[in-house]
């Protein structure tokens, strides 16, 4: 049985904004699923619909087989990090978590354990207003972990974390999945989650563009040809004229469509000097751009 099961989920804000448009997906137990898309794609709205903070305009979503509101002591089943600023600035970190624990019927003993888990034990007595952005993010993660839940829903958990913090988060999420827990984690920084997730959901402009195991999706994606040339602009024109999708940054091109041999031939026929030509398996970012590009063309 899927841990999270969304069917034809839609959310409209006012008459003009369709934030989520007929999105259906499922999250399997024991996996880390990346919920990926640019800012404003509808990720946060979808996650908030899962935990009943935002009411869907259409469709339904079930978590652990029920609507979130029908779960008994829901925060002991589903932990959610949705808003790192959701703490009273005058409370200490420990008291902020005690308030959450008290409301959820969770023992205060779990507060110290959760703070230690996110390495905030030393700052437990400090007021939240003195926390850095990264510390607030860790505190929000601790709040999600308080009930020792089997499902974690994390909205942009790496926001505000430094590189060390991001690495820590990656290890942390993998450890949770290794314990058999299910994690749904959203991010707009694709490289950030690429090494962490098993499955991905790609959303853009409220529509779900792709879902499945990351290994499968990247395997079926077109490889990317990386080119470096002092005449990169000219080569870009030549390749674009042949229908290739080209991204240029300085003297480097990422080309999707033609194989490397064809790119080399185009360069040679146009008298373009190449300094580098290689084929790469597509990254998550390449995959996302391909999928989003395909949908745009369609």
């Amino acid at each position: 049985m899927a841990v999270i099961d969304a069917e034809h989920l839609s959310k409209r804000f006012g008459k003009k904004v369709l934030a989520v448009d007929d999105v259906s997906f499922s999250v399997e137990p024991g996996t880390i699923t990346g919920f990926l898309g640019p800012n404003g794609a509808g990720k946060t709205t979808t996650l908030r619909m899962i935990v009943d903070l935002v009411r869907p305009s259409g469709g339904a979503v079930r978590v652990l087989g029920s609507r979130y509101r029908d779960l008994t002591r829901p925060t002991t089943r589903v932990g959610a990090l949705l808003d790192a600023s959701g703490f009273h600035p005058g409370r200490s970190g420990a008291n902020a978590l005690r308030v959450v624990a008290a409301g959820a019927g969770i023992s205060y003993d779990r507060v110290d354990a959760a703070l230690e888990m996110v390495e905030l034990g030393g700052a437990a007595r400090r007021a939240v207003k003195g926390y850095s952005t990264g510390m607030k993010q860790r505190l929000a993660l601790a709040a999600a972990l308080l009930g020792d839940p089997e499902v974690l829903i994390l909205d942009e958990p790496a926001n505000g974390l430094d590189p060390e913090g991001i690495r820590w988060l990656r290890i942390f999420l993998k450890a949770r999945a290794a314990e058999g827990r299910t994690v749904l984690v959203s991010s707009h920084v694709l490289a950030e989650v690429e090494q962490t997730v098993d499955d991905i959901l790609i959303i853009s402009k409220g529509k779900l563009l792709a879902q499945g195991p990351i290994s499968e999706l990247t395997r079926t994606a077109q490889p990317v040809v990386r080119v470096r040339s002092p005449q990169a602009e000219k080569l870009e024109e030549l390749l674009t004229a042949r229908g290739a999708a080209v991204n240029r940054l300085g003297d480097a091109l990422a080309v999707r469509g033609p194989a490397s041999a064809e790119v080399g031939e185009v360069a040679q026929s146009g008298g373009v000097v190449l300094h580098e030509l290689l084929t790469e398996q597509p990254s998550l970012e390449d995959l996302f751009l391909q999928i989003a590009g395909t949908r745009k063309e369609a």
Partner: protein
Amino acid sequence: MIALLRAELLKLRSTRTALGMGIAAALVTVLPAILLIAFLPKGTIGGDEARTILTAGSSLVTYIVLVFGILGMTGEYRHGTITYTYLATPRRGRVMVVKLVVYALVGCLAMLLALLLANLIGVIGLPIRGVSFPAPDGAALADYARQIVTAGLITAFGVALGALFRAQVVTVAGTLIWALMVEPLIVAFKPHIGAWLPFNVFSQVISLPIGADGDAAGGLSRPEAFLVSIGYIAAVSVLAVFISMRRDVT
């Protein structure tokens, strides 16, 4: 419900808002009482009269607990803590009920302490000015009880208003303008309508405020005022819950 109750009590204990409210309530009670004792010519008033004046400052306590009630609910939205509150208790009506009960009790407690403080100052201070401070009789105790109950009702009303309007500054400012300016004007020019307006109804639980003869001026009896007060709180609370169940927490 017990978990929610624990959480609300911890919320009150873990910030300075409740402490600030307590200090403000103590100040508005103590300062007028001390000034009265300091400037009271010896032997000019009797003990009962002095007690009435000493406890007059407690009427300001009702406005303090009103604002406290509003802050209790709007603070959840202002600081974003409502997200965790609703994650733990997705049934939003329960959150409202517990907040109403807890804040009503705190409002009662604040008024009780204010009245105790005023009486304490009377017991200690008035003999210095040659006025004996008599022990409260049945009528005085009944009046205190009404003030305590009304403070609880007004605090709960503040919570309900906060849940309805959510925006902290707008709700506090709007409510105080209504209570201190708009209602008194309506009462002055249209007393029959004014008698039914919320803050005037609350004050009628304590006394008959419209002229010397409340009934003749279209006022309410105390039991009526009490029931209408409960009606106001219930109506605003039900409306707030109804709307909050449809509101998105974004």
